[in-house]
C-alpha cells in the first residue's frame, strides 16, 4: 500500500514537472481505459491497426482546430462556446464563395481561410456584443444563438445567388445542396500536402504543420499583452477591472478570435472530409469539440493547448475505433448511438463536476 502511494506520488511529480500543472482526473482515466479496451478488442479481431493509426492522425487535425477555437473564449471567462455554429456558418459562407468561383487547390483553400477570417470576424463581433450583455450566462445564451443562426442561414443557403451548378440543387437550379462535394476543388489539399510514407504509415506533415501553426499562434496570443489580460479577466474579473482593464473589449476580442478560429476550423474539416455540409449540420458540431477539451482535462473554466490537443486525439480515436468494432461485434447502428452518448455524457459530467466545485469552495 505504501509502495503504491509512493509510486503514485512519484508519477504525479513526474507529470507535474513534464506537463506543467497537469493532473489526471476521473474522465481521462475512464476514457483511457475505454480506449485501451477498444485497442485490445481491435487487436483480437485482427483489424489493421496501422490504417486506424493513420486515420487517427488525420482526425486529430480535422477536428483539432475546432477544439482549439474554444480556448480564447474559455480562458476569457466567457464559458464553453456552445455558440460555435456562429463561427462555423461563417466559415461555410467563405467556403461556398470559394467554390462558387471554382477556386481549386491551395488557392481555393487559402481563399476560404481568408474569407472566413473576414466573415467570422464580423459574425464574432456581433456575437461578442450579444454575449457581453448576458454576462455569466454565456453558455446557455450561446446555445440559443447557435440554434437561431441555423434557420437564419438556411434562408441564406436557399436564396443566396450562387452560380456554380455543382453547388446547386440539380433540379430547379436554385438553392445550395445540403452536401457539396469538394472533389473538383480543394478536397484533401492539406491532407496530401507533404504526406510522408514510411512502411504502412502515412504521416500528413503538411496537415500537422498547419495545426502546429494554429497552436503556435494561440501560444503566442496568450503571451501578448492582450492575451495576458484575457487570462486575467477569465480568472478574476473584479481584479482585472480594478487594474484598469477594459473587460468588455477584452471579452469581445476573445469571442471574435474564437469565432474566427472556428471558421478556420470548419475549412480544415471540410477539406479533410471532402464535403461542405450546410443547413442543420453545424448545429451539433460544437458538442464533440467541447467534449474533447473536457476530456483533455479542462474543468470548463480554463483550458490549455496541451489539453485541447490531447482531448481531441483521445476522443477522435475512440470515435474511430468504435465504428469498425461496432460493425464487427454489434449492430452497426450502435456506433452513432455510442458516439452521441460519449459526447453528451462528458459534457454533462463536466457541468456536474464544475457546479459541485462551486459549492464546496
Amino acid at each position, binding site marked *: 500500500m505504501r509502495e503504491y502511494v509512493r509510486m503514485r506520488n512519484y508519477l504525479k511529480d513526474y507529470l507535474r514537472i513534464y506537463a506543467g500543472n497537469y493532473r489526471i482526473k476521473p474522465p481521462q482515466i475512464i476514457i483511457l481505459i475505454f480506449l485501451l479496451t477498444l485497442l485490445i478488442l481491435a487487436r483480437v479481431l485482427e483489424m489493421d491497426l496501422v490504417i486506424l493509426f493513420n486515420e487517427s492522425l488525420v482526425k486529430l487535425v480535422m477536428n483539432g482546430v475546432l477544439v482549439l477555437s474554444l480556448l480564447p473564449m474559455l480562458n476569457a471567462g466567457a464559458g464553453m462556446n456552445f455558440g460555435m455554429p456562429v463561427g462555423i456558418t461563417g466559415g461555410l459562407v467563405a467556403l461556398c464563395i470559394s467554390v462558387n468561383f471554382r477556386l481549386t487547390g491551395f488557392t481555393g483553400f487559402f481563399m476560404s481561410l481568408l474569407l472566413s477570417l473576414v466573415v467570422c470576424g464580423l459574425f464574432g463581433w456581433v456575437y461578442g456584443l450579444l454575449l457581453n450583455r448576458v454576462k455569466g450566462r454565456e453558455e446557455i445564451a450561446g446555445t440559443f444563438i447557435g440554434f437561431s443562426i441555423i434557420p437564419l442561414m438556411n434562408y441564406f443557403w436557399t436564396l443566396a445567388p450562387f452560380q456554380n451548378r455543382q453547388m446547386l440543387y440539380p433540379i430547379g437550379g436554385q438553392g445550395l445542396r445540403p452536401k457539396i462535394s469538394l472533389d473538383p476543388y480543394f478536397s484533401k489539399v492539406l491532407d496530401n500536402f507533404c504526406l510522408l510514407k514510411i512502411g504502412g504509415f502515412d504521416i500528413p506533415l503538411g496537415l500537422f504543420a498547419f495545426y502546429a501553426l494554429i497552436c503556435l499562434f494561440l501560444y503566442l496570443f496568450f503571451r501578448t*499583452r492582450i492575451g495576458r489580460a484575457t*487570462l486575467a479577466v477569465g480568472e*478574476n474579473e473584479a*481584479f482585472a477591472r480594478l487594474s484598469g482593464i477594459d473587460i468588455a473589449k477584452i471579452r469581445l476580442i476573445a469571442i471574435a478570435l474564437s469565432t474566427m478560429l472556428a471558421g478556420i476550423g470548419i475549412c480544415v474539416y471540410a477539406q479533410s472530409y471532402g464535403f461542405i455540409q450546410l443547413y442543420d449540420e453545424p448545429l451539433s458540431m460544437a458538442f464533440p469539440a467541447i467534449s474533447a477539451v473536457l476530456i483533455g482535462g479542462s474543468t470548463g473554466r480554463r483550458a490549455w493547448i496541451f489539453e485541447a490537443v490531447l482531448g481531441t486525439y483521445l476522443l477522435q480515436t475512440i470515435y474511430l475505433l468504435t465504428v469498425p468494432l461496432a460493425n464487427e461485434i454489434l449492430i452497426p447502428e450502435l456506433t452513432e448511438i455510442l458516439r452521441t452518448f460519449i459526447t453528451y455524457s462528458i459534457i454533462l459530467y463536466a457541468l456536474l463536476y464544475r457546479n459541485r466545485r462551486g459549492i464546496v469552495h
Partner: protein
Amino acid sequence: MEKILEIKNLSKSYNGIPALKNVSISVRAGEIHGIVGANGSGKSTLMNIISGNPVIRETGGYQGEIIYRGSRLQVKNCAEIIRLGVGMVHQEFALIPDLTIGENIKLGREETCRFTDRLFGRKYSFIDRRRNNEIASQVLKRLGLDVDVGVKIIDLSTNTKQFVEIAREVARSDLKLLLLDEPTAVLSKSDALKLLEVLVGMSRGGLGILFISHRLEEVQYICDRVTVFRDGEVVSRYKKGEINVTKLAGDMVGHQVYKANAQKRSVKATPVLCFKKFSVKMPGEEIKSLDLTVYEGEILGLTGLSGHGKLALGYGLMGMYPVAGEVIFKGHKLDRMNARTNIMKGIYVLPDDRQALGILPEHSLAENIIFTGDQVKYLFSRNPLGFIDWKGAYGYVEQAVRDFEIKCSSPKQRVKELSGGNLQKVCIARALTVNPQLLFVAEPTRGIDIAAKEKILKMLIDINRSKGTTIVIATSELDELKRVCDRIAVLVKGRVFKILYPDSPDLEFGLALAGEEGANYEGIRQDEELPEGLPEDLCG
C-alpha cells in the same frame, strides 16, 4: 478529566514542504484549548486534518495519530466528522444567504410535525417552522443576540452572521468538540467579548473547545491552556495563569515584535486631491456628498464604523461603483472615474478584499506583481505586441521579493499558496510598479498576524517617506492609524464628520466615530465618563 481529542506526533507536508512537524496536543472535556501562531505556522493545516478536509488526502495524507474519544480517528470527509459530534466554525461564512436565520441554524436538523412523520416518514415530513424558529431564537438569546430569526442571512451584517454561524453549532445537542478558526476576526471588540463569554459558558457544560485566534488578549482571557505554533512546530505551552500576551507574541514570532511608528511631522497643506460633494453608491458602504482634501505627501487615515463609507472612496475613484460629484487631482478635474486613466494619472487603489479583488490566484507571484505595470503602463516589454521581457521582469520581481521580504519558494510560485501577509506585500509591490503619486489602501492589515502587520505598516511609512507618495489608509484599526498617519478623517454616514490628529485624545475619537459632536473638547475633561450607549471598543 476525559480527553476528547488527543493528537500524537502529527506531521504533514505539502509537496515536500513541511507544514506540521511532530505536533502533539490534547483537548479535555470542559476545556478551552487555545492555539496561536503567525500566519503560515500550521494552524489551518491542523484544522483541516481534524475536520477531514479532502485537501489533506489529495496531498498525500498525514503521519501521526489522532484519537477522538478513545478511538482512532479516520475520517474521509467533513460530513463524517460532523456526525461524530464535532462542530466547526470557519473564518469564512458557510451560511446560505437566501434562507432565514432560523432556517440556517436548523438546517439539516429541522423539527418536523409528528403527524406527518408517521404519515410520510421523517424524511418527507412537514417542517414545523414555528418550533424551529423558537429553538433558533432561544439559542441566539443564549448567545446574547436579540434578532428576528425570520430575517434572511443576506441582509445581515458581518457581526450577526458570525453569531448565526456559531449558533448553528451551538444548537446541536450532540456536540462534543468545537473547533473555532478565528471566530472573532470579523467582530468588534464588544461583540467578541459577548461571544467569548458564551464560549466559556459552553465549556463549563463539558464541551471541549479548540480555539484559534490572532487576538492574544482573548486567548489570555478565556483559554485554560495555550499551545503556540511556529513554522509548524509547537514552541511553547502555557497553562491558565501563566498565559501572558507579551510572552505569547514573543513565542509566535520568535523575536521581539517591532512596532511600526511614524515620526511626527507637519505636512504642508498643498492639496493633491479634492473631493467635492462626492458620492459613491457602494452597497452597504455608501458615501454621500463628501468633502475632503488630501494634502501632498501626507498619510491620511480614514476611519469609521463599518457601513459608514470608509472603503468606498478608493473603489469610487476606480469606477467600480457609480459615483457623483467632483474630484480634482493636482488641479485638474477627473471627468471620468476609469481605473485605467486614473492609474495612468498616478492614483492606485489596493482593495480590502485581497482574495477577491487583489490577486490572480492561479497566476505566479511574478505575474501578479508585474500585472498592472505591464497592462497599463506597458512596462516589462519592449515590442508592440507586448511579449514580456522575462529576464528584466524576474530581475524586478526578485528585487521586490528581497526588498519586501516576501516569503515564497520562487517568483514562479502560484500566488494562492502564499499567506495573507505575503499576499498584501505582493499587492503593495504591484502598486509600486506603476509608481503612484497617490495610493489608497483599504484594510491593509486585516487577517494578518502581528509580525507581518507591523512590517506592512512600516512598508507604507517607508514608501511615503522615501518616494513622497501620498497615502490614504482606510481601516477600522484606530491604533494603527494613530501610529502611522498625519491626519485621521472620521467618516460618519458617508461624510467626513471630523478630522483629527494622531495625538487627539481617545475620547474624541470615540465621540467622532459615534457621530457625537464633542463641540469643544476643552470643555470635557479626560477622566470624564463616556456618554451612555457608546460602544466601548471605539475608545481604544
